[in-house]
């Protein structure tokens, strides 16, 4: 195996048009000043992005560990292959924090060893996928928002906190073809428990009751259809504020609702997504209206796409019978582990050992785990075999999908002593006899 990235150099190098994978916005206008194989400055990046680019690379950690002891890459790959080949019910988990190239190899491994394959963490993302399967989706690329949107609704999200450049690049101040004045060309509405603290400064704020996203969306949909709201109904938010929002929606030519995690529990979040999508369907009788999930960082949109094109389903896929079966819940990581079903796991850049419920964590600690990540985590520390990886985007090339499914090429800026996820996974794929 070889290490990746450009040659080291002591002079100052400028890498332009680099892509940031920190928050899901995939800003691709980053200029990286590189000196002595370290990023010294990340121009154009927001503070979150700069932190991502300037993070100290892992140093001193072994490339691979077997049972907590340093091992050669070849030995670790062979041991990983043995664990996964011998498993009767292997699990492949993660993928959202890797390039599409690495994701494609991970799915090929899952196919070969007959694994249960799941990328959906947290579960609510999977549930919104299920809402999509029920109703459909009215989606547009972020450039459509920039060029055309005259109404932008942030529902249960505050981009200033989670996606710092979303507003300037796509949704608030962005100036486009039919929005030449940027912020003055559009109205901004914010629907949330509390007003924002990030300077969003919306034209309209709708205070939402805790856990009442669905009720508020359904009331809004009824108002848009011209129904009277009966006294005693639970509108989920002050009726007058919802009425003002519905008026703004009726008056817009091109509206978009960015849906965050909202205030609801994971269990009913698919109903929330369902309600938002159904409302968008109604509105398209008269004008254009879109709903976009405010996806998080890494490459979750890439994982969705890759798993879908290779298996037909986006997550929660079981390949144990020799072909893909889809049943989120039954085939979701947390459930599979909680029930004590999996007997080995390949974890690609995720940390289930610290994120899952106690029953799932307990079972994970008892089975053979092969973990790959960019730094130490609870999962890599307790894994039977672990690999340290070169940070993707920063030190390895590959494809990354923006939150709206637009794909971008990573532009590596530094050289890493560690292998890429794709390289390690290719080694494991060969060891288990997976097809390229």
């Amino acid at each position, binding site marked *: 195996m070889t290490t990746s990235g450009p040659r080291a150099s002591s002079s100052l190098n400028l890498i332009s048009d680099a892509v940031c994978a920190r928050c899901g916005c995939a800003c691709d206008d980053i200029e990286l000043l590189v000196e002595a194989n370290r990023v010294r400055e990340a121009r154009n990046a927001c503070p979150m992005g700069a932190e991502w680019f300037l993070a100290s690379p892992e140093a001193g950690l072994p490339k691979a560990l077997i049972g907590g002891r340093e091992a050669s890459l070849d030995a670790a790959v062979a041991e990983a292959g043995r664990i996964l080949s011998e498993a009767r019910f292997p699990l492949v988990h993660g993928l959202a924090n890797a390039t599409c190239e690495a994701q494609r190899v991970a799915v090929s491994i899952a*196919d070969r060893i007959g694994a249960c394959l799941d990328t959906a963490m947290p579960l609510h993302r999977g549930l919104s996928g299920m809402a999509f399967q029920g109703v459909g989706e009215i989606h*547009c690329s972020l450039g459509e928002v920039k060029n055309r949107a005259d109404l932008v609704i942030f529902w249960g999200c505050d981009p200033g906190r989670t996606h710092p450049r979303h507003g300037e690049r*796509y949704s608030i101040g962005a100036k486009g073809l039919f929005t030449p004045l940027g912020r003055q060309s559009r109205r901004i509405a914010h629907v949330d428990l509390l007003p924002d603290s990030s300077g969003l400064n919306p034209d309209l704020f709708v205070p939402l009751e805790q856990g009442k996203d669905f009720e508020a969306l359904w009331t809004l949909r009824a108002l848009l259809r011209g129904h009277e709201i009966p006294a005693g109904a639970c509108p989920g938010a002050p009726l007058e504020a919802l009425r003002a929002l519905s008026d703004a929606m009726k008056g817009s030519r091109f509206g978009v609702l960015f849906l965050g995690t909202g205030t609801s529990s994971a269990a009913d979040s698919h109903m929330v997504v369902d309600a938002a999508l159904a409302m968008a369907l109604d509105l*398209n009788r008269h004008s254009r209206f879109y709903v976009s999930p405010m996806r998080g960082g890494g490459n979750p949109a890439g994982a969705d796409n890759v798993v879908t*094109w290779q298996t037909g389903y986006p997550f929660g896929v079981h390949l144990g*019978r020799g072909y893909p079966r889809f049943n989120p819940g039954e085939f979701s990581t947390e459930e599979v582990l909680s029930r004590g079903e999996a007997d080995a796991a390949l974890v690609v850049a995720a940390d289930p050992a610290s994120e899952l419920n106690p029953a799932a964590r307990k079972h994970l600690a008892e089975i053979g785990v092969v973990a790959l990540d960019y730094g130490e985590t609870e999962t890599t520390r307790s894994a039977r075999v672990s690999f340290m990886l070169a940070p993707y985007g920063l030190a390895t090339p590959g494809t990354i999908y923006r939150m709206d499914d637009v794909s971008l090429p990573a532009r590596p800026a530094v050289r890493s002593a560690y292998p890429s996820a794709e390289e390690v996974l290719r080694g494991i794929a060969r060891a288990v006899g997976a097809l390229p």
Partner: protein
Amino acid sequence: MTLTRIRGGTVHDPANNRDGVVMDLWFRDGVMVEGPGPGELPSRTHDASGLVVMPGGVDMHCHIAGPKVNLARKMRPEDHREAAPVRRTPITRSGTAGSVPSTFATGYLYAGLGYTTAVDAAIPPLAARHTHEEFHDTPILDKAFLILMGNNYYALKAIAEGEYERARAFAGWLLESSRAYGIKVVNPGGVEAWKSGWNNIHSLDEEVPHLPVTPRMILRGLAQASMDLGLPHPVHIHCNNLGLPGNAATTIGTMEALEGRRAHLAHIQFHSYGGEVSDQASFRSDVPRLADWINSHPEVSVDVGQVLFGSTTSMTGDGPLGYFLHQVTGRKWTSADTEMEAGCGIVPIVYKEKSFVHALQWAIGLEWYLLVKDPWRVGMSTDHPNGASFVAYPELVALLMDRGYRRDVLNRVHPRVRERSILQDLDREYTLQEIAIISRAGPARLLGLSTKGHLGVGADADITIYNSDRDRRRMFELPRMVFKAGELVVDRGEIRAESRGLTWHVCPGYDDGVLPDIRRWFESYYTIRFRNYPVDDSCLSGGGAVSPCDRGKRNP
């Protein structure tokens, strides 16, 4: 690689005037060669005596990759669940079938039917990178895609401003940047109108909102650009008003608007309706009039977009059409608009024999095959998966080759179809040679893929061998052997080797004086950097292959 002989097959190779000739065929290193001189023996011989030998099938209009197809896969788990599973084997990947198969399954299913080349007809250039990734994971087939340009804002603006040269250079740049094969026009101007909050555009001379440009101007500009760039395949058109009663007038108008320029009209079945737009009950076939027009205009070709009965998924770059179908069917609907470039609509649909409209669409498709005199200008297509899945092609072959079977089906579908079409009066039956033309030789020629669709010296050794069987559906469902680039990839329905296949594209060149203007435009209105837009050859399946452009052949 070794010299291989296909011995004694009955060869249907229309491009080389072989119509059922019993002969040996030879190939080496994936390419057809002359038979060797005396003394040189093949290292492998496949006995094809008594079998029918054709070039590998070429599907010139289908939807198999990219964001639209992948959204459809994601939206329709029930469709995968109802289909037979595609199991992994020691040499193949698993997958899901149904109307929108997963990538690996797409390659295996096409190859299993004897197809070795398929062209995706509608990709937004911004999604080129994604599409090439999916092509990588679509085995065996050679692939290509057409890029959507009929609602590309920059192209529309250049045409509106009378700057044809700029539009042409832009098209050349866009084709090269996306590593695409040709130019597709979908509902010219109508998708931009939809995105601007209108409903649609319905006439060739209606202006697009915000731009003094009409469908007629867009069609002329992009047809001319395709010719002037010397593209191997002319502009590929999905007309305005798809699916509406009375749209045959728009289709005739579209062909007339081209004023003698070369063009290909896609899924013409969906554009061949008589009647009144306001009255669904007035729906009737208008194929005879349109077919006459095609018969007297050699510069225009069509593929049919045959409807076959059953459950499938409608997917289109025509955003307002997707909404229309959602309203008609009441089924779930996905719409996805791409900045500056395109729209998209996806709706599940079931074509029913007892539905008047569906049965009439079925009959209209068949009328097209039977009324166009020159089979070289009718590509066999179901517009997969819009009219039906490509796996229904054997059913279509049976309908074309056997008028008795065709009448049996006609007699059980909605009775009013017999009044509103002339299908029952058409006795023509396709010969095997004509099937070979519409399913491989013709599409390859229309696409300008000079090494495809024939078995002459220098052609790619993409060969399908069928059992000779009076049951034509069974014959075409299960080829005896399929070779791709000289490799035996399918043997009696079993995948024997999994090659990658190539992605074909064009490099037409362009006047690079236009680049600064494109770049300024791009950086103002797109949301990714100019430099991050183009894909390079490392993205291409099999490293890619270039189909040459002929700029000397500008005006025929």
